[in-house]
């Protein structure tokens, strides 16, 4: 039988006002196994804690119950208190007689009665508590960043600059993501490439960053502090060390395919460099469009390559890395144009999406910064911008707001006006969301200085007619039907999670939200953590966001990762599941229900990986043999608590 001490806190009058603490103390002193019971005005105060420590020493207590406020407030406090008196912290339990009793009842007698039950319940529990020590896990002090867009780059740099090795994995031939495709950025209109390329170069030069482009995550195992990652490095067939960037190969390559970087506005060869500032600065032979790697099939590029950098025999390679934390920054894609057929996107050459328009505006773009119609390279005099294309449309498309469209459309209108001073920009919008530093002012500028004409309403029809694109719509403010003969239409299409994000999420066991974005552990308080310990989220992979937000979240994620990597060891709550092998029949039901894959079958018996187990206890409620339970909240304990809660 244990020697339990019970300490009842008055919490000033917060508890003592409605609970007869003296009576509770008296009642508990008679409870089986309770050898000491007293009450005090503020248990959490230093004198209060000292009184607990004294009592432990005087009465050789081996367990303690503090009846006070909610355990969420002072459980840790009192567990440390008993620890300092030489008792295992897990021999201390809290009875919540404030939030769950004194604060919600008025009748003193009844409240006291309930407080007694609550306290006895806690005593019954602590009587059967095991002394436990936190489970300690070594930490591999390196990080993995998945995705080489601005978010991934930022996280990688923050981690590396804090002195931690980083593996940055990007699936395309170059890092830079979508930001590198942009022309200018709102609200400052500074050149996107000019601000991003220095960071890209820093990544490539950083001694602590191992950059793996044209690579994909194949498999991840392990747990926080100790992940094992398998990375597939796809062959580029060009040896970057030998390649001198002479560009001879592209001249001879017979194949032309749409250039992803310019979103199909230009073409590229099968062997190509994504864009001039690509990092790593090297060529890639795109096997999908290449006529074939055998010299007989083509082989022209290899023939002309002086430094013999082109190696058709290059094989895919599996890189295995061990890391302690993972940041997922897989970014976004634009909503498929196929799904936006109603706006003629993909059907009419002069109906573009936002990114394509960015390329048109970009100095490095297909038109070297001149805004010209793809169809006939004429300067468009009237351009219609349509917002919320695919966004905020629960019936047909995405229910959510893509958040950045209002801003970049305003920017587009501005840029257009700057390129074509005599042109007119029309903007169809549902409403304008310009929350953000300098954002509202920016939109105003578009309207006032650049005379963008905002039309509140949806576009009903778009069709080509005599070289013009007719746009029919309604201005819901004036109620007038609107008909514009536009030269160009730019769609602010919705942002959606990037291709393959779902697959990756499965491998990482990160949950997805209803829209397919990676879900954070808590929408408010844990916005950069995933539900899986040790995995963090950054950028548009988690939700649509603009550059400053992506960067902020990226740095946040890095900081969170550093919080793990900076530890020698991690400590994990020891209140985990334990199996009674004598009872286990190996049916595997627990394995099936465990949300953390912490259970497995070994020689026909369930086995707990204590590091992965979060102690939720779903396994124990599922087990028909009562063969698995969570330490310190076992069915036996709950059963005794039930008894106490019902008054004996």
């Amino acid at each position, binding site marked *: 039988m244990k020697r339990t001490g019970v300490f009842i806190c008055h919490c000033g009058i917060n508890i003592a006002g409605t609970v007869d603490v003296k009576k509770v103390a008296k009642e508990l002193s008679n409870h089986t196994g309770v050898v000491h019971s007293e009450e005090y005005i503020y248990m959490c105060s230093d004198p209060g804690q000292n009184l607990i420590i004294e009592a432990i020493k005087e009465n050789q207590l081996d367990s303690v119950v503090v009846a006070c406020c909610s355990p969420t407030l002072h459980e840790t406090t009192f567990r440390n208190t008993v620890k300092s008196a030489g008792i295992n912290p897990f021999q201390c339990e809290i009875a919540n007689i404030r939030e769950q009793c004194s604060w919600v009842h008025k009748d003193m007698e009844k409240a006291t009665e309930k407080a007694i039950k609550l306290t006895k319940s806690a005593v*019954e529990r602590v009587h059967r508590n095991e002394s436990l020590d936190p489970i300690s896990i070594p930490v591999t002090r390196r990080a993995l960043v998945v995705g080489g867009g601005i978010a991934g780059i930022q996280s990688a740099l923050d981690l590396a600059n804090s002195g931690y090795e980083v593996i940055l994995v990007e699936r395309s031939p170059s890092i830079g993501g979508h930001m590198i495709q942009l022309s200018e950025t709102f609200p400052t209109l500074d050149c996107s490439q000019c601000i991003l390329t220095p960071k890209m170069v820093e990544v490539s030069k950083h001694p602590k960053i191992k950059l793996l482009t044209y690579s994909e995550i194949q498999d991840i195992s392990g747990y926080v502090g100790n992940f094992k990652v398998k990375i597939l490095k796809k062959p580029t067939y060009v040896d970057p060390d030998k390649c001198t960037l002479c560009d001879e190969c592209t001249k001879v390559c017979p194949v032309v395919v749409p250039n992803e970087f310019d979103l199909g506005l230009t073409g590229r060869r099968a062997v190509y460099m994504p864009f001039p500032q690509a990092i790593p600065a090297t060529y890639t032979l795109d096997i999908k469009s290449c006529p074939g790697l055998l010299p007989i099939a083509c082989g022209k590029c290899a023939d002309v390559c002086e430094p013999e950098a082109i190696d058709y025999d290059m094989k895919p390679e599996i890189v295995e890395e061990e890391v302690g934390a993972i940041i997922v920054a897989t970014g976004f894609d634009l909503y498929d144009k196929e799904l936006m057929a109603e706006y003629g996107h993909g059907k009419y050459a002069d109906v573009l999406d936002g990114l394509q328009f960015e390329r048109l505006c970009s100095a490095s773009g297909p038109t070297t910064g001149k805004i010209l119609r793809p169809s006939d390279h004429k300067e468009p005099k009237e351009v219609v911008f349509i917002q919320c294309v695919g966004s905020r449309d629960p019936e047909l498309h995405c229910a959510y707001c893509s958040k950045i469209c209002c801003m970049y459309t305003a920017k587009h209108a501005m840029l257009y006006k700057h390129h074509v001073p005599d042109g007119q920009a029309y903007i169809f919008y549902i409403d304008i969301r310009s929350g953000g530093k300098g954002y509202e002012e920016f939109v105003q500028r578009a309207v006032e200085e650049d005379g963008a004409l905002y039309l509140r309403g949806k576009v009903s029809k778009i069709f080509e007619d005599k070289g013009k694109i007719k746009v029919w719509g309604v201005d819901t403010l004036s109620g007038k039907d609107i008909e514009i003969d536009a030269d160009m239409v730019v769609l602010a299409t919705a942002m959606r999670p990037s291709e393959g994000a779902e697959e990756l999420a499965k491998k990482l066991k990160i949950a997805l939200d209803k829209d397919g974005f990676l879900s954070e552990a808590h929408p408010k308080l844990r916005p950069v953590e995933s539900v899986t310990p040790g995995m963090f989220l950054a950028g548009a992979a988690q939700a649509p966001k603009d550059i400053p937000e992506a960067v902020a979240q990226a740095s946040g994620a890095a900081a969170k990762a550093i919080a793990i990597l900076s530890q020698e060891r991690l400590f994990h709550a020891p209140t985990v599941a334990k199996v009674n092998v004598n009872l286990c029949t190996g049916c595997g039901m627990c394995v099936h229900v465990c949300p953390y894959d912490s259970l497995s079958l070994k020689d026909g018996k369930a086995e707990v990986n204590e590091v992965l187990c979060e102690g939720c206890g779903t396994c124990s409620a599922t087990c028909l043999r009562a063969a698995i339970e969570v330490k310190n909240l076992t069915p036996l304990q709950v059963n005794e608590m039930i008894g*106490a809660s019902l008054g004996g």
Partner: protein
Amino acid sequence: MQKVLTKKSLPQWVKKLLSYTIYTPVEEDDHWNFVATDNPEDINLDYPLTTLSPKKIIFPQREIFLEFCDSTEGNPEVKEVLPAEKSAVIFGVRPCDAKALTFTDKVFGGDFKDIYYWKRRNQTTLVGISCNTPPYTNCFCVSVNGSPYSKEGLDILLTDLGDKYFVETYTKKGEKLLNLAKGLFKSPTAKDKKDLEKIRIDSKKKIKRQIKNIKKIPPKLKEMFDSPFWDEESMSCLRCGICTYLCPTCHCFDINDEITSSSPIKGKRIRTWDTCQFPDFTMHSSGHNPRPDKASRLRQRILHKFLYFVDRYQNYQCTGCGRCISLCPVGIDLLEVLDKVRDYGS
């Protein structure tokens, strides 16, 4: 004393006995059972065999010994609980079931007298009914020194003579019941006695199932303790408690403290039936189980009934009621087993 009682006056007799608790066989669902009644019309003596023998009344499945409470001041209160003072009459007891009680009498009446058992036993009067035709497909009382009209253990035995009962009393208890309704009982005529004799001779003949040379069995069993025979025979056994719980002679029990409150500790000390067929029956607290499998448990059941009990009380601990055979969920046939034992190795 010998009397006759017309069938229609049976209820009138019972009416006179209402100061007793009256039990009679009653059909519930698909089986028969002894149930207390205060309606004389309920008495039914024309029935097969009850699933549970009157053992359940004399030696109930659950007996409270005492109630205890560890009062907070630290002086525990313990209160002994005894069976209620209430005389009872059980009508329609089958001779085999009555005989069975003479065995439990021995068990609970040795050097240590079980007050709970005896209180009930002494305040209960058993009115038997002889089995003119076997009430049960698997009756074999004759094979185990019993008979369809055995008086052993009975206070009164009734025999159905068509429109009347032939009434025999064997004890003071029995006579007392008759005296409570003197007028109803007539002395038997010569014909009555002749009919009785005839019926009895036939009734024995009608019993089909039997064990030949049962005497050979006990000595045989002595040699068979380690025989693989038991593994074979127990293959189909399910280790349920039917054969023993329903056996009128089985009397094993367990005593538990059943706690109703853990602080202060309150509860009752309770005796419940137990059976050698349950694995936990012989489970040691060390975890060791001397009867680890079905084979050893079946062996125990047979040896106890046809060897140990015989050695100790010079009687087979079986009255041939046939319950264990008819109600075994997998049709294990005691008689078949015993036949095999008898012929084992020869």
